[in-house]
């Protein structure tokens, strides 16, 4: 436990806070912190988004017996940066008879929604922008705002494909929002808190997926499936469905506006993976097994930020693995799956978890 503090970021962040407060008025300090945080997140967001695009291309390439990008830089590392430069320089095509204001607004809505969700994520010990006491609630609420952007994009493009894609996306996210919430509720019941930092602390002696055994594993699997649907990724990528709707809601977008959608999609994937890692796999908490002191100490030597990103990327890989294996569902089957299978199972699981917690049947 002492070792954990070596890697804690709280000393760093509090010292910055202190020096800022010493140097200027408190409101100025807060404002500067806002700006600083915003800048850090922007850079992090962009870099992570680019890396995720690169990762996806490499993962799918290996799955498909290919090499993947290998021209720009060593192992094609700078491929996505080259792509970004290309996207930046591309023409922004204006669509005839499109609703100009909404058309331009939509990418921002989508990207802001995913950007806001980042604020509540605990990246490492002491590295969390804002530790809300309703953290999970906030993340769910904010991340589902993205669908508004998708609907606006589909509506304002004045394209039939876009409209169909947007409508599909609307139906899909409204349905799957329920299951995502219920699956996350499992951990809220276990830990008795909605504050993300408390949930992470509660896993110091074992992750919830182990402590909660069968119901927690079940909730984890359900969360993975519904979260994949929530972020419009294959096999649930009906909003894009390139073989049916060419590119779905972003058919008419080009250049950097398209890049916003693209980036937001990948960042949403990161966010759901991070939530899964935080809630089910202990977040930045190292792998601790109750009673094994030596083992726990060795695990503590690994910095918490590595633990967090390691777990997140494992889940991201699983989500990618889904996409590159399965055929796409049909829209009615997608809704069937949610309302006839996932939601009932989730409800039953929630009841079981409440029972398990009441009787104290989970590992403490």
């Amino acid at each position, binding site marked *: 436990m002492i070792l954990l503090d070596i890697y804690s970021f709280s000393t760093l962040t509090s010292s910055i806070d202190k020096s800022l407060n010493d140097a200027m008025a408190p409101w100025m300090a807060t404002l500067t912190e806002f700006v600083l945080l915003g800048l850090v997140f922007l850079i992090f967001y962009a870099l992570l988004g680019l890396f995720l695009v690169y990762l996806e291309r490499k993962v799918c390439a*290996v799955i498909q*017996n290919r090499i993947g990008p290998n021209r720009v830089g060593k192992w094609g590392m700078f491929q996505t940066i080259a792509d970004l430069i290309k996207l930046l320089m591309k023409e922004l095509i204006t669509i005839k008879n499109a609703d100009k204001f909404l058309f331009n607004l939509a990418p921002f809505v989508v990207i802001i929604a995913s950007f806001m969700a980042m604020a509540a994520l605990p990246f490492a010990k002491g590295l969390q922008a804002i530790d809300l006491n309703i953290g999970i609630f906030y993340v769910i609420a904010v991340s589902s705002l993205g669908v508004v952007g998708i609907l606006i994009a589909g509506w304002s493009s004045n394209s039939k494909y876009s409209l169909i894609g947007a409508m599909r996306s609307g139906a899909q996210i409204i349905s799957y929002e329920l299951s995502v919430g219920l699956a996350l509720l499992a951990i809220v019941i276990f830990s008795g808190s909605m504050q993300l930092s408390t949930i992470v602390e509660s896993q110091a002696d074992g992750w919830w997926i182990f402590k909660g055994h069968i119901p927690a594993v079940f909730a984890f699997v359900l969360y993975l499936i519904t979260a994949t649907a929530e972020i419009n990724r294959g096999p649930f990528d009906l909003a894009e469905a390139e073989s049916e709707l060419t590119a779905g809601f972003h058919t008419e977008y080009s250049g950097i506006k398209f890049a916003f959608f693209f980036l937001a999609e990948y960042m949403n994937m990161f966010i759901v993976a991070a939530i899964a890692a935080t809630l089910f796999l202990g977040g930045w908490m190292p792998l601790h097994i109750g009673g094994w002191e030596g083992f726990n100490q060795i695990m503590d030597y690994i910095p918490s930020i590595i633990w967090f990103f390691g777990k997140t990327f494992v889940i991201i890989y699983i989500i990618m693995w889904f996409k590159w*294996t399965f055929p796409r569902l049909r829209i009615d089957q997608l809704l069937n799956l949610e309302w006839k299978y996932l939601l009932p199972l989730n409800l039953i699981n929630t009841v079981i978890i409440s029972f398990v917690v009441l009787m104290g049947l989970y590992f403490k």
Partner: protein
Amino acid sequence: MNSVVRYINDIYKGVVSLWTGMRVTGKYFISPGEIVTEQYPENLATLKMEDRFKGEVIMPHDENNQHQCTGCGICEMNCPNGSIEIITKRVPNENGKMVRAIDKHIYHLAMCTFCELCIKTCPSNAITWGQDFEHAVFDRTRLTKVLNKPGSSLKKKEVKS
């Protein structure tokens, strides 16, 4: 009750089938030795095309800059697309008589459909397949080629003894 069993059975079967699918892709993910990508410009040094590869029609010349084309025009006649044009001229042979000889054997690569009829029907085996396949050019006119090299002449037929 029956429907509940079916419901659960459906879920079980579905999950199993999804897992078998994921095992296939997972198997290839952990075996990078299966990668089949050909790294084209890098492997140029080792890239060996098949002997019969139809890259383009060429006219082999020997070391004396001599070819075997008599300018008979059978290839031109057999080409279904008109991608061969034969321009002949009259040159004196060793006896001083004016005989027909090839001036230009023009080959429009852009029009060629690689049906092999010209090569098949050539009575003197003057043309054959070349293995070059890098035909991308910026200007279409560069795909029109003259197959006989400048200054080349007809190879003398060796008299069979």
